[in-house]
């Protein structure tokens, strides 16, 4: 199953019956999958919106009504959704937003890239807000994290972003879906569904009184802290005795892992830390590692973004190198192993 299809199928199995999207390469197969799949399901609604802006606003509406709802796009389209994402956060509306990142800035290209890290983790829209950001690195994980994304979104009433890339969307790998009943969205007591048998409600983000808006901001901030405390996910690979840690996510982490396997065979003590949640970032894990490991190599398919989070986590406690390949370039595990090796010996670790 291709990554794009896996996300679509996982969404459906998570109980998502509403998808609003707009075509953009390299995620069209997801949109197309949802068009087909939701057409087959009773109650399934697929709309090809007139734009990404329209799509994210349809998402807002469907979420207000209590639905599990998803949209997907790729970089330029995600930029257009930023106002809407800010609104989702302000109104505490759950939704799943998929970004199969491509090369940028501008129209860029359709090759796999990781250059929307800042946008995803710092909120490209206006105002203080965060979204949960999940970064899968295999088709199986795309499926698993998509289902998880719906749960997290509902649990915390927060939009959750799946940050993939063109390659993850296009490639096929075997996928297994959990057996049994599809998950049902939890009951929601804040939706607007018509004021039958209860007082009328409204959902809004306008809070004209600065004191009230401030209180709301701190309320959101406390929620983000709760999420940061509870929802950090990462993969640790061969860290037990590592002298150098590669920090990478998504596709880059796959490649880094391949390189590390190779290097381990050659006796280099290198490990991988792969943040699965980009926000919340596994800050404490890194801090702990820095107690015994002095060298970190951050590899990203961009010009240097997550490396800031690594620097923030380590605060000068270890040496950090950055290796970036922006523009949609995918290097081989072999090339990556050369990069690691050279730093490894240069620092006298071998």
């Amino acid at each position, binding site marked *: 199953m291709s990554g794009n299809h896996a996300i679509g199928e996982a969404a459906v199995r998570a109980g998502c019956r509403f998808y609003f999207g707009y075509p953009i390469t390299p995620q069209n197969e997801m949109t197309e999958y949802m068009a087909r799949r939701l057409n087959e399901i009773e109650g399934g609604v697929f709309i090809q919106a007139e734009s990404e802006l329209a799509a994210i*606003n*349809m*998402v*807002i*509406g469907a979420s207000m009504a209590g639905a599990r709802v998803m949209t997907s796009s790729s970089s330029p389209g995600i930029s257009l959704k930023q106002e809407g994402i800010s609104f989702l956060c302000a109104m505490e509306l759950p939704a799943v937003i998929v970004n199969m990142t491509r090369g940028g800035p501008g129209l860029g290209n359709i090759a796999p890239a990781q250059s929307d890290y800042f946008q995803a983790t710092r909120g490209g829209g206006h105002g203080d807000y965060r979204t949960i950001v999940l970064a899968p690195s295999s088709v199986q994980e795309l499926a698993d994290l998509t289902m998880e994304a719906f749960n997290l979104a509902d649990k915390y009433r927060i939009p959750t972003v799946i940050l993939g890339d063109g390659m993850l969307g296009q490639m096929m790998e075997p996928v297994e879906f959990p057996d049994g009943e599809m998950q049902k969205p939890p009951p929601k007591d804040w939706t607007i569904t*018509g*004021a039958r048998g209860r007082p009328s409600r409204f959902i809004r*983000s*306008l809070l004209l009184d600065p004191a009230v808006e401030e209180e709301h901001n701190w309320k959101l901030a406390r929620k983000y802290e709760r999420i940061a405390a509870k929802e950090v996910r990462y993969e640790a690979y061969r860290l037990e005795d590592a002298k150098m840690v590669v920090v990478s996510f998504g596709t880059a982490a796959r490649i880094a892992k391949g390189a590390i396997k190779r290097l381990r065979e050659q006796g280099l003590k290198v490990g991988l830390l792969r943040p699965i949640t980009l926000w919340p970032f596994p800050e404490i894990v890194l801090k702990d590692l820095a107690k015994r490991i002095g060298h970190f190599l951050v590899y990203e398919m961009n010009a240097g973004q997550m490396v800031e989070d690594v620097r923030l986590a380590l605060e000068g406690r270890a040496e950090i190198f950055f290796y970036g390949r922006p523009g949609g370039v995918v290097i081989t595990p072999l090339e990556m192993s050369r990069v690691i090796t050279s730093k490894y010996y240069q620092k006298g670790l071998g």
Partner: protein
Amino acid sequence: MGFQKVFGRPRALKDAPFHYCPGCGHSIIHRLIAEVIDEMGLQEKAIGVPPAGCAVLAYYYFDIDMGEAPHGRGAALATGLKRVLPDRLVFTYQGDGDIAAIGTAETIHAANRGERITVIFVNNGVYGMTGGQMAPTTVLGQETTTSPGGRERIRDGFPLNLSEMLALTKGSAYIERTAVNNPKNIMKTKKAIEKAFRVQIEGLGFSLVEVLSPCPTNLKLRPVEAWRWVEENMMDVFPLGVIKDVQRD
């Protein structure tokens, strides 16, 4: 034989005084919508989508469920709501800037898809909330803060007849233009709103009522003058009447 109350506050409005300026059409239109909701028994079924615009706080007034839309995106947001809850009555309430400038695409495509939603489009010829800038519907010669000396065709373009454009879409079922600048027009506006809601409930497609509405503050006129101004300056460009009715055509 005693006296009976024949006119009072509709139930679908909360007991909150409006924040609108004296003589503002928004207030009247709010009441008309609420009266129709009362009369059609829709208070528990109706969901409203307020705009960014003078009516941004509409949820303080309407005693029904409401969900705020980003500026201009009412029709898209309402689409999402309605698709999840097809048996509810979903309407947006939008100003001319909201619907005919930034929201042009969303409105046209919702109409074209035949979304079963109703749009109440309040055309006051100006950006009221932001302090009187030129709107897509500002008429030629009308002075606003961004059309110094009056709207000028070459420099500023023309007033836009969005409702007529929407009528061209095959998904729109009912479109009428009314006004709230005298008692007769006010009554007609109420009828139009009722009809639009019925069209939605019957699943015929997209319905819209454009209401020409006085904005005394930005016209810098007293309310009674503003009523006349709407008659004399807007109605040529935006003629009243049913623009489309699939049940009649």
